[in-house]
């Protein structure tokens, strides 16, 4: 769990935002992992599995009847209380992106995946990923000032 917990948690927060719900999704992902019979070829494969299952679990959660009828859509992100103000600004900017952009931004800028790799993990076309990244770049530049986004 130690190895992928942070990746899963960050993806949960990118989508679910509410800590209690994010915890539910987090536990669901690891429960799926424990019960899964998938044979992983290597660590990369395993990590990609976690990313895909987490994004799907988040989407399922957001689609659920309970969620769509009880949670306000503009809920405040549950970011670490001790996050420095400058980082908080960046995270807020990422969280303000449309949902479909966030995974690509996180996977590209933080996890270091290329667009084709992100496409394979998220089951999207490479060109679509490039488009998502370009648009995200523009939006983030608008919010945070364009310095060093390339």
């Amino acid at each position, binding site marked *: 769990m130690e190895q992928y917990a942070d990746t899963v948690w960050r993806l949960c927060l990118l989508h679910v935002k509410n800590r209690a719900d994010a915890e539910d999704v987090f536990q669901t992902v*690891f429960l799926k992992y424990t019960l899964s019979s998938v044979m992983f070829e290597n660590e990369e494969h395993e990590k990609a599995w976690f990313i895909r299952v987490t994004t799907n679990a988040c989407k399922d959660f957001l689609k659920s009847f309970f969620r769509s009828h009880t949670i306000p859509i503009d809920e405040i992100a549950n970011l*670490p209380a001790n996050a420095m103000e400058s980082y908080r600004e*960046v995270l807020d900017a990422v969280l303000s992106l449309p949902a479909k952009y966030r995974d690509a931004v996180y996977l590209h800028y933080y996890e270091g995946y290329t667009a084709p790799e992100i496409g394979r993990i998220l089951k999207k076309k490479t060109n679509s990923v490039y488009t998502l990244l370009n648009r995200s770049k523009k939006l983030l530049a608008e919010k945070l000032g364009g310095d*060093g986004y390339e």
Partner: protein
Amino acid sequence: MNNRLGQAFDQIHTPEDLKSRTEELLSLRISKGSVPPKRIWRYAAAVFCMLILAVGALGGWLYFTPVSAISIDINPSLELNINCFDQVVSVDGFNEEGRALAESLELRFIDYASAIDLLLSEQGVESYLKQGEGLSILVVCDDPERSEKMLATVENCTEAQRHVHCHSEGSENAGSAHAAGLSCGKYRAYLELYAVDPSITPQDVQDLTIREIREWTWKLSGITQNSSPENDENTGSAPKADATPEATASSPEPSSANGHNGSGQGHGHGHGKGKHRK
């Protein structure tokens, strides 16, 4: 900005209490061996599908596995292989006419009584019957009860015909018959002939009709045409054991020619002619 994003995400770590709670939850689930409801349904569906497949495979195997056979010999010589549902699953021809007849009629996947009706109404077979050729129908089955039932059905199907002999026996001779290239019915007739003249081989009778084999047998046994039960026969249901070749000579093989019900063993006696090849 890449750095800023990276550093910002670096600020986010999984809370330790969440990790420990998740680990507890997972160990609890593992120790309980509990399976989420979705997965139970998946297993149930898989088991159900396997069950359906198994039942289908068993049904298919049962359907396509012959448990008995009916050997029909007049001049066309063929065997209907019957499954446990009384359906014909395959037809084997043992001479040219038999093979042609098997191909010309749709005998498969119908019940054997209908198949016999179809065969008897076939023009060629009808003309043989009109010519007075003997028709031998032999039920080959190892289950006495089933054999008796099949024999009764076959006799019922042929009661309107003359010169028809119905018998039944176990499958003990089937292997030898097929190895000799003969149907079980013709092999049975051959065994009767063999009993009176052991020098006769299956090849000698291969091209003969049932009637010719019998006439040969009667001739060698010294049975005259007048004493032949074929003069008043329809079926072999009334054995006249004392007059049959089997009553006077033993079979070349210990297990041969043992009818379950002993019926049909009093076949006609010589009509005084015959294309005897020896």
